[in-house]
């Protein structure tokens, strides 16, 4: 509580005020009792029962005892409560009836009459008795008689209005008892008086409030009345009740403003609509701002004055109630509300005035709170105050912009004029803060004084706010303040300081996928990077912006043009290459292989059609699109074989790439879907199911770190691989939207080729797609030329001409004119040929490509088949007839050879029932592609099985020859006869079969051909 500055002005110090109790009668007596009385009165609390259902309260009573004067009694209509005497006490220690009759009675009567005249009924007569006096005057009446007389004379029916206080200055139990009784009485009477008088006051107040619709009603008058009540509550230390009074006033006023906005205006309110001429902010350092209170009293207050005063009172009470955080919260509401109300009431406010008012008020509230809390308390309640810090920062910023303090050149004369006007509205600094170095007033004045000072204050505030936001985890708010700061730095032409704030904010927006803030921040960042000369970053940002559909077409074109301009400028001075990420420039959509199995033999051509979705708003002339290819020699040679082709890669050769970023720049749903597979594990022994499960095959995609996706913002992550193998396509125009680009390549070395990176060159700018995913591969294989000879039927039979198919797989070898197969003739096998032999040439994929006639020449030793010309990786097919001559049975040995030896030799080839004898014929073939001869073995089955037996009948001998056909073919046997090779004259063979007998034999049958013969006689 500060001492009054101007003693002449009536100042209300509610805290020092106590309810007034007047004392009449013996002043000396009172003076002697006073010390004990004032000390004892507040010692014990008293329950205060309230009207209107309000909860009873324990209250410690204190009083301000003043000498009774008639002027103290309120006149009719006076609403002042603070100066209202709640109780009147008459003190006397008279014990002499004579004295009583002579003077005291008159005196009390006079006193009573004055009270009655003012209809005051709260009074008490105290008779102090002391033994000392009694002893002195032994002739007096019993002491009770005076009290009785008084009671009789004055307290009709209210005997409790007269109390006796015994020996108040002695230290005895009787004294104590007497004091206690007296104090209890005093407290009870005081409370009764409060209840009665405050109740009456409240009733009057309510009546007044009900009249608010009447024309002459004044809010200010009413304000003063209700505030009086608040004062009394405050005086009684009932801060909660006091606060309620102000809150009611607050709500009432707010309602009027709202109604006014709705067109229901009260006359008195128009006064508050006067234009704002002073904006010196809240004053919270005094419990009561008398200056403003007087303005209200005299109905001269503006809206801001009223609001300020009201809030300063609420603030004081809240701090008494130890609720400083409510102050900060209410303050923010108040400031917002005032701005709204001024708008609603259409009050004219000079530009910047409100900003000043809000700024000063924010700081004032913060300093007030700091003044009543310790550091730790403040630190743990940042969330309550940071709003004010942020608001102050915002307001200072807009003041800076308004006054031309945030520009390179500093304020111009117009700005200066505005500043002067704003400072004028602040008035002089108030005496309470004059000695404070960091007062809001001084801060504002200083901040507006120069560009440098503004910068210092603005940066201080911003940094403090960012720090506070960060410390309580309000990262997004911190970033937003940071962005304002970045804007400031950009205006101050120090982009290097702005960059980090923009980058941080952008990272946050990208991570959470907020498209519009991303676009906006990126645009700011682009400007910043341009100023900083970060060519690469600028171009990368530009490419992102050029592809950003949230920008207008013109803006996109602008950024695209920026890239193209740079690309073209640098053409003259090569050397500086800028590598950017491709994903913003164009997206790889599909890739189509031809041949569709992505398998090509050495020397073959492969074409790859790439579908690129250009995201640039205009057509871009691209010098080259290159795909770098990684070459690896597959260890698994199987992959290279032609068979692989049919078994794998059954797709149509189109590979689709997932959308990198659709309209939602970063939605978690773009992460790949789970690829789940069933898994069975069976026991190796009995094939029973051991375990089953589900396997996720793309865990590596799903569980990768999240940051990797946002790192695309930093283009330094893009590196260009040096690959020996590069697919190129030059001078392509990429139109906006879908483009198809075809790469052709001639397969060279066999192996697996993996497409790794794609690089689009525009002048010196290269857009690189660092990884192509899913993995795209094509294979190149090489095959040796091969000759295959196989019978057309299941098996070849000896002795009859049969067709054999020759298949020449050319592989890498190209068959030239004159190339021929040289077949070395075997004795037992003849190669038969006709004049017209045709060969068919197939392509690699079994498509018939041509037909040619075949030239076959035969000499004694060699049969030469001249092959038709055929390119590499083709097949030539032709058929030849071969005849395996069964060995001529010229000798018995050969018989044996035919019958037994092969039988033994080919034992394993014989099937259980049918025992066909086989005969291997080997042909050596010289192929044009090899210096080595190819040995082809053809297996011929001998279709017949012949058995003979010698049978005897008497002297006659019969020879039975049995020929069995084992093949599936039918044979006709004719002219069978038995010849004696020994030419012995004694032997005569007589055939038993008729000469012309013909038997058709079936393989399954075992028909026997019997040949009778005359045995050797003798």
């Amino acid at each position, binding site marked *: 509580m500060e001492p009054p500055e101007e003693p002449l002005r009536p100042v209300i110090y509610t805290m020092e005020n106590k309810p007034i109790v007047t004392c009449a009668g013996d002043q000396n007596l009172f003076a002697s009792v006073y010390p004990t009385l004032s000390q004892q009165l507040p010692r014990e609390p008293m329950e205060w029962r309230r009207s209107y259902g309000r909860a009873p309260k324990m209250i410690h009573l204190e009083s301000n005892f003043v000498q009774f004067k008639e002027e103290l009694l309120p006149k009719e209509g006076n609403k002042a409560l603070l100066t209202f005497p709640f109780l009147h006490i008459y003190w006397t220690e008279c014990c002499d009836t004579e004295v009583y009759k002579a003077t005291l009675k008159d005196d009390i009567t006079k006193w009573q009459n004055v009270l009655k005249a003012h209809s005051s009924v709260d009074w008490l007569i105290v008779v102090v008795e002391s033994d000392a006096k009694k002893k002195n005057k032994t002739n007096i009446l019993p002491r009770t008689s005076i009290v009785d007389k008084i009671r009789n004379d004055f307290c009709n029916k209210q005997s409790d209005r007269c109390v006796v206080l015994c020996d108040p200055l002695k230290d005895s139990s009787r004294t104590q008892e007497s004091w206690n009784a007296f104090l209890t009485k005093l407290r009870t009477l005081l409370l009764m008086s409060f209840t009665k008088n405050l109740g009456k006051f409240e009733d009057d107040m309510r009546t007044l409030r009900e009249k608010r619709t009447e024309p002459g009603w004044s809010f200010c008058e009413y304000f003063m009345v209700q505030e009086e009540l608040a004062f009394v509550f405050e005086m009684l230390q009932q801060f909660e009740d006091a606060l309620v009074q102000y809150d009611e006033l607050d709500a009432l006023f707010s309602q009027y403003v709202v109604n006014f906005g709705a067109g229901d205006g009260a006359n008195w309110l128009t006064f508050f609509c006067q234009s704002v001429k002073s904006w010196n902010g809240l004053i919270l350092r005094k419990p009561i701002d008398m200056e403003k209170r007087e303005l209200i009293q005299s109905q001269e207050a503006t809206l801001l004055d009223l609001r300020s005063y009201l809030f300063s009172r609420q603030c004081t009470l809240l701090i008494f109630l130890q609720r400083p955080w409510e102050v900060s919260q209410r303050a923010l509401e108040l400031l917002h509300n005032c701005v709204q109300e001024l708008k609603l009431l259409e009050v004219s406010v000079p530009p910047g005035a409100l900003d000043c008012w809000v700024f000063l008020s924010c700081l004032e509230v913060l300093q007030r709170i700091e003044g009543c809390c310790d550091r730790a308390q403040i630190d743990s309640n940042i969330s309550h105050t940071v709003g004010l810090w942020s608001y102050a920062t915002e307001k200072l910023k807009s003041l800076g912009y308004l006054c031309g303090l945030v520009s390179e050149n500093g304020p111009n004369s117009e700005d200066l004029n505005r500043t002067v006007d704003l400072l004028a509205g602040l008035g002089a600094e108030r005496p309470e803060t004059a000695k404070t170095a960091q007062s809001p007033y001084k801060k504002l004045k200083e901040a507006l004084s120069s560009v440098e000072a503004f910068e210092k204050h603005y940066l201080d505030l911003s940094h403090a706010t960012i720090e506070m936001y960060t410390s*309580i985890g309000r990262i997004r708010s911190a970033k937003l303040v940071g962005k304002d700061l970045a804007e400031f730095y950009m205006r101050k032409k120090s982009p290097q300081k702005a960059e980090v704030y923009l980058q941080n904010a952008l990272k946050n927006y990208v991570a959470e996928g907020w498209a519009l803030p991303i676009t906006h921040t990126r645009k700011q960042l682009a400007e910043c990077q341009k100023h900083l000369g970060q060519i690469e970053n600028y171009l990368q940002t530009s490419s992102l912006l050029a592809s950003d559909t949230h920008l207008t077409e013109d803006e996109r074109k602008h950024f695209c043009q920026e890239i193209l301009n740079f690309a073209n400028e640098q053409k003259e001075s090569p050397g500086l290459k800028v590598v950017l990420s491709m994903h913003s420039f164009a997206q790889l959509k599909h890739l189509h292989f031809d041949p569709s199995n992505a398998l090509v033999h050495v020397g073959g051509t492969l074409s790859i059609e790439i579908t690129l979705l250009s995201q640039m708003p205009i057509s871009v002339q691209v010098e080259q699109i290159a795909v770098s290819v990684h070459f690896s020699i597959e260890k698994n040679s199987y992959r290279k074989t032609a068979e692989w082709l049919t078994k794998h890669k059954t797709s149509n050769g189109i590979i689709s790439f997932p959308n990198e970023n659709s309209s939602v720049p970063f*939605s978690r749903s773009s992460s790949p879907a789970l690829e789940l597979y069933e898994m069975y594990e069976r026991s190796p022994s009995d094939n029973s199911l051991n375990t089953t499960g589900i396997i996720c095959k793309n865990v590596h995609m799903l569980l990768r770190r999240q940051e990797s996706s946002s790192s695309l913002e930093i283009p330094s992550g893009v590196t260009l691989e040096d690959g020996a193998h590069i697919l190129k396509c030059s001078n392509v125009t990429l139109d906006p939207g879908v483009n198809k680009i075809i790469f052709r390549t001639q397969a060279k070395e066999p192996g697996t080729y993996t497409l790794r990176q794609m690089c689009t060159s525009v002048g010196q700018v290269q857009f690189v797609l660092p990884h192509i995913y899913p993995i795209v591969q094509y294979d190149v294989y090489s095959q040796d030329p091969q000759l295959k000879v196989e019978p057309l039927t299941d098996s070849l039979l000896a002795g009859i001409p049969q067709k054999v198919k020759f298949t020449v797989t050319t592989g890498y070898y190209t068959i030239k004119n004159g190339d021929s197969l040289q077949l070395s003739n075997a004795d037992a096998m003849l190669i038969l040929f006709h004049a017209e032999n045709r060969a068919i040439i197939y392509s690699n994929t079994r498509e018939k490509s041509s037909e040619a006639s075949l030239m076959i020449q035969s000499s004694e030793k060699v049969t030469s088949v001249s092959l038709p010309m055929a390119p590499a990786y083709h097949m030539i097919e032709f058929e030849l007839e071969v005849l395996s001559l069964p060995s001529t049975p010229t000798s018995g040995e050969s018989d044996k050879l035919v019958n037994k030896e092969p039988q033994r030799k080919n034992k394993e080839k014989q099937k259980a029932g049918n025992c066909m004898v086989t005969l291997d014929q080997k042909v050596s073939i010289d192929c044009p592609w090899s210096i080595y001869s190819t040995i082809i073995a053809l297996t011929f089955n001998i279709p017949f099985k012949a058995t003979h037996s010698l049978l005897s009948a008497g002297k006659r001998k019969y020879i039975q020859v049995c020929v069995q056909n084992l093949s599936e073919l039918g044979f006709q046997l004719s002219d069978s006869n038995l010849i004696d090779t020994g030419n012995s004259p004694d032997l005569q063979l007589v055939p038993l079969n008729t000469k012309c007998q013909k038997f058709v034999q079936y393989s399954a049958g075992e028909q026997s051909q019997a040949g009778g013969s005359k045995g050797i006689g003798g």
Partner: protein
Amino acid sequence: MAVCIAVIAKENYPLYIRSIPAEQELKFHYTVHTSLDVVDEKVSAMGKALVDQRELYLGLLYPTEDYKVYGYVTNSKVKFVMVVDSSNTALRDNEIRSMFRKLHNSYTDVMCNPFYNPGDRIHSRAFDNMVTSMMVQVC
């Protein structure tokens, strides 16, 4: 009534955001995004309060000079944020609550659509119409 209504996914990216007038769109996006700070704070302050007893309505997230931002969070941590003009004093807490409830119901309908992929942006005419009705009602 409301000047901006947003539905924000659990991971804090917008599922739906619409505002009037269109020129202020960017500002509202910033406002709504920043308000997530307070949503986070309030949600974590609620902590592990019994799920069925938890109040979904978060109340006033923070006032600005011109707007009031209200929040609501579903049990699946999808946030609804509504920005209301400060000058619109007719809107009391109860109205805001009921607007959020309406929004929640409509959102549930969207989720029930078998063709809607949870996590995708909301493109639903029914939802659009409902939002529109809440935006123009008083304005």
